[in-house]
């Protein structure tokens, strides 16, 4: 889209990537596929490096990975799920790093695309979490008890249940996965579009001498927004992980 001389690319051009391989098939391999594989590979590489250089006093990568595990163990698992949730630390750590790297690709030069700005990434993740917490709840509490604890709040008058059960059904089994997927996707897409917008404006002002008067503002905003997007990347990964922990904790402990 061209607006007042600024060539702003259409949103579809920013998000729909051309196939690199298997074009036209269900296994179409494009930039998003590369990024998701890359984030998994980076996470695994960091853990393998941290695990290989085992030192009593951790340094470098070992220190970073151990601090991350500590953070997820104490601030996510113990706080939300209690001691029972400790078995889920590796799973939640993997989820956190997968989302984090997919988010941070937004600010990595030459990549500059968060894979999580695609619903193709966030919807499967949300669905995996959704299936996992339901399976865990059913396995832990039994089919009837799990759905009863999830849908029927305790200590509520029977008359109100007519109203509350549909609300709980909607909130737990329909809104939850949708909200998980949309929250992450929406935040990352918005951030990506913001960065693209300010990058396009800065670039346009670079080439138009008259624009030099206001050049520092969009360029500086771009720098600030890049920093902000790094923060958002961490925050959204944390939010997705902690909400997953909350849902799993409810399934483990009976909720309500």
């Amino acid at each position, binding site marked *: 889209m061209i607006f007042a001389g600024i060539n702003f690319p259409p949103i579809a051009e920013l998000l729909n990537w051309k196939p690199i391989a298997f074009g036209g098939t269900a296994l179409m391999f494009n930039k998003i596929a590369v990024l998701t594989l890359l984030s998994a590979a980076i996470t695994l590489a960091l853990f393998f490096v941290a695990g290989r250089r085992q030192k009593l006093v951790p340094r470098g990568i070992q220190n970073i990975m*151990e601090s991350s595990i500590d953070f997820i163990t104490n601030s996510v698992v113990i706080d939300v799920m209690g001691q029972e949730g400790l078995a889920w630390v590796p799973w939640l750590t993997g989820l956190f790093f997968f989302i984090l790297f997919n988010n941070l690709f937004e600010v990595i030069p030459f990549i500059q695309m968060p894979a999580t700005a695609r619903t*193709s990434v966030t919807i499967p993740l949300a669905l995996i979490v959704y299936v996992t917490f339901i399976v865990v709840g059913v396995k832990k509490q039994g089919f009837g008890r799990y759905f009863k604890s999830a849908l029927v709040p305790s200590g509520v008058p029977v008359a109100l249940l007519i109203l509350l059960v549909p609300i709980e059904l909607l909130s737990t089994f329909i809104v939850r996965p949708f909200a998980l997927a949309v929250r992450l996707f929406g935040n990352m897409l918005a951030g990506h579009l913001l960065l693209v917008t300010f990058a396009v404006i800065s670039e346009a002002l670079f080439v138009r001498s008259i624009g030099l008067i206001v050049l520092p503002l969009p360029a500086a905003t771009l720098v600030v927004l890049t920093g902000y997007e790094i923060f958002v990347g961490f925050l959204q990964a944390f939010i997705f992980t902690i909400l997953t922990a909350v849902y799993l904790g409810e399934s483990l402990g009976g909720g309500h």
Partner: protein
Amino acid sequence: MLFGVVTQSPNPILPSTGEIIWSVISFGLLLVILVKYAFPPVASMMAKRSDKIRDDLEAAESARRDAERLAEERRAELGRAREEGQRIIEDARATGEALRQEAAAEAQREAQMVREQAQLQVAAERSRLILELRGELAGMAIELSTRILAHELASSEVDPLVESLLAEADSE
């Protein structure tokens, strides 16, 4: 061109099948490899470290308790040694006093004994001298009597004889 849509693309919000499949494969692979192979070494190192820290803290606590116990024992031993030393000094003082008194008593006793022996010796010597004198006086009396009888000396001559005999006895 102002406000114009350049290209018609698929809805950017809708997911693409290929991307879904690859993201599920990526995440699935990540979880399987992470949980089975990559996570355990890091977690075991962390567990080992926390075990070591706990063990070290316990060892330090135990060492501190031992040190306190030893210090308490040393204090008690020192107190006992001090008391023992005091007792030994007092015993020595008492023993010294007893020995001094005994020595003084012994000395007095010996002095008394020496005095008594000396008195006895003096008395014996005196008796012996008296006996000797008596013997000599008896001998002199006998000799005088003999001389008187042998020479039938007049009584006037007896006195000088007696005198000379007595003078002789004195000189002896």
